[in-house]
């Protein structure tokens, strides 16, 4: 997708990240042993249901968890700098500067009392203490124009409530990008938007990525967005990575029943009308007391294909998948490709089976 050259080493490396929150009911194991990396100019898509730890893990990258209560272990390296355990002062230099985040709910993330322009200028001046107010304002204006807000010179002096949903999201992106971050984390950036506006925002993110060669993490539950935007995909369930690899491998030859479930529970606008919507039975587990063995086993419809009681007793390792380089999966199934092709695909995409014959 983006052809910009990368400087070799990945920009963000997350290694064996574990995040736990002590609560009155016990220890919530929000993220367990998570590892991934993103290079400059590339996009990683993180998918999973609510409570799967996708937001928690990316908030850890920005050091947004309360240090007094959250228990974070493992390593997060941003351009070689270790972020876990970094002092708040050093973290502040990084946050909003080298690493920025776009949140889902733009209305809640923008301050209702301040004008859009003032909020953007503040983000700029925090990291450019020598800049004058005038410089900051012209930079804010430039960014509003860059993200495609009509009449930016008029809009800069308006309040967030005067903006429509899509424009607020653009203003948020402008704020996130005002300091030219090398890593942009977009947490459900288009979930609350209409499809036409969603497409505009996704276009914008892609254009900006090509222009600035930044690394992007896009957190979403929409597999369609991931398919069109991401180079790599990380599927999370109950705080763990269950499948990881290139978007093409993970979405066309998935080898983990949870990924199958995600694919089968969303219909496709272009699918055969004989295709079924096959839900994942049950509900996501509580992270206070995660299931033994494979965390997905209570909802897995393919458990009986694994000999013995392995799924219930033993956590599968994240191992190389049968097919594809760098494609990892966490599942005990011996031949997942055959099961997917023989059982799942004919039900969710009958037309694709015919094509293969």
């Amino acid at each position: 997708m983006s052809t910009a050259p990368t400087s070799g080493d990945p920009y963000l490396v997350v290694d064996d990240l574990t995040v736990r929150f002590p609560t009155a009911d016990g220890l919530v194991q929000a993220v367990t042993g998570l590892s991934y990396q993103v290079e400059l100019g590339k996009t990683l898509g993180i998918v999973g249901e609510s409570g799967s730890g996708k937001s928690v893990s990316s908030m850890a990258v920005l050091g947004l968890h309360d240090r007094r209560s959250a228990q974070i272990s493992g390593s997060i390296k941003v351009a070689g700098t270790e972020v876990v355990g970094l002092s708040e002062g050093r973290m502040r230099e990084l946050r909003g500067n080298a690493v920025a985040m776009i949140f889902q709910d733009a209305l809640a993330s923008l301050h209702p009392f301040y004008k859009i322009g003032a909020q953007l200028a503040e983000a700029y001046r925090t990291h450019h203490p020598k800049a004058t107010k005038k410089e900051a304002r012209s930079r804010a204006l430039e960014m509003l124009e860059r993200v495609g807000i009509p009449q930016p010179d008029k809009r800069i002096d308006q309040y967030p409530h005067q903006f429509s949903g899509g424009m607020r999201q653009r203003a948020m992106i402008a704020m996130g990008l005002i300091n030219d971050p090398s890593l942009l984390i977009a947490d459900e950036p288009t979930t609350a938007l209409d499809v036409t506006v969603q497409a505009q925002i996704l276009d914008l993110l892609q254009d900006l990525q090509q222009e600035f060669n930044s690394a992007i993490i896009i957190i979403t539950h929409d597999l369609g967005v991931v398919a069109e935007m991401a180079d790599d995909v990380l599927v999370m369930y109950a705080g763990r990575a269950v499948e990881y690899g290139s978007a093409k491998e993970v979405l066309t030859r998935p080898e983990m029943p949870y990924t199958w479930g995600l694919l089968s529970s969303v219909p496709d606008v272009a699918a055969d009308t004989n295709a079924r919507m096959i839900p994942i039975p049950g509900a996501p587990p509580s992270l206070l007391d995660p299931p033994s063995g494979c965390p997905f086993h209570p909802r897995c419809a393919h458990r009986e294909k694994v000999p013995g009681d392995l799924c219930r007793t033993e956590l599968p390792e994240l191992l190389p998948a049968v097919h594809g380089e760098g494609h990892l999966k966490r599942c005990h199934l011996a031949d997942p490709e055959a099961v997917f092709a023989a059982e799942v695909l004919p039900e969710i995409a009958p037309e694709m089976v015919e094509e293969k014959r």
Partner: protein
Amino acid sequence: MTEDATIVEPGEERESFEELVKHTHSANELDTSAPPVLTVENLRMYFPIKTSLMRRTVGHVQAVDGVSFVVPKGGALGLVGESGCGKSTTGQLITRLYKPTGGSMTFEGHDLASISNREMKPLRRDVQMIFQDPYSSLNPRHTVGSIVGAPLRVHDVVPKNKTLSRVQELLEVVGLNPEHYNRYPNEFSGGQRQRIGIARALALQPKLMVADEPVSALDVSIQAQVINLLQDLQREFDIAFLFIAHDLAVVRHFCPEVAVMYLGKIVEIGDRESIYANAHHPYTQALLSAVPDVKQAATGGRRERIRLTGDVPSPIDPPSGCRFRTRCPIAQEICARHEPPLLQIGKRHKVACHFPGRLGEHPREPLTARLLGVDASGQPDPGASPATDLVEQPGYADTWFDLDGKTIGRA
């Protein structure tokens, strides 16, 4: 907090994948012979805008402006469109949460638009609603039994001592544990709460259900559970659905017929095939092309799409002529001067556009000019004789204007 090991979700007992598949449905099919259960004609809803001090009316929000459609018995009509297009207001008009400004809604021989609230009460049994947000639509201080039993008590359909057993029956139908009637909504997850809302709507055995974004607040894996449940109920109890959603893929699966709305008007309506594979309105084409496609993963990169610029204009002061013209890639002079009539162009396909055509094949000359009695730029043409019967009719006629052959098609 919300999860409880004893709550029985469907599939809690071990099910193999084949059994799981057996409980699911493929897309609903169209039954063209079904008689209409609801006929909506020229429905309008204008909300007055009042000044804060004198309460003087200074304008109107034209939320729904002349909408006509038919919902067949036991069938499903989907209403899609961007936020603010009036699809939810249409649903609220049909359930008479608002009294419409004009038009008619014929349900079993009664015009729901003109009858009084008192006359409406017995009919409310037959028209029920499922809401979008399973958190705010259930009273947190009432037990599930009291929530699901409320319609039974209000309409006095079962003796008091039988209410509980009926409630338990309903909970079982929607896949909840009937023992849980004395729990509170906060003890359930989002998907389970939506099932409670469905059980409440089902309590009076309605003939028509208005489902306003029933799955958009739910997690992806739960969405499919709820859609399959709605399909089960539709088949078992022969309920007709007006299914309002912005997710075009879910609507395609659930509804054999779809109406696309833009700024309070229907711009295109037809069966699934006509809308999704043969759309003739530039707005429908733009909407469809904007949906991200999972299959794109095989090739990588974005799909070719029609770029719509800007936002939906305000319904207080909609654009003149065609309301879509301010964002339309093919708009011409006539579009600003005249509103395009909703023309039937196929057996079950109507479109409101001066230049209807498949993507990339839109005609250069407006097809509607002669019907409206104007020339190609929209100026009055003294030589033309305007058609007089351009009033939108619900349902479909037996003859239509065939665009491919430029002839009159017949059923």
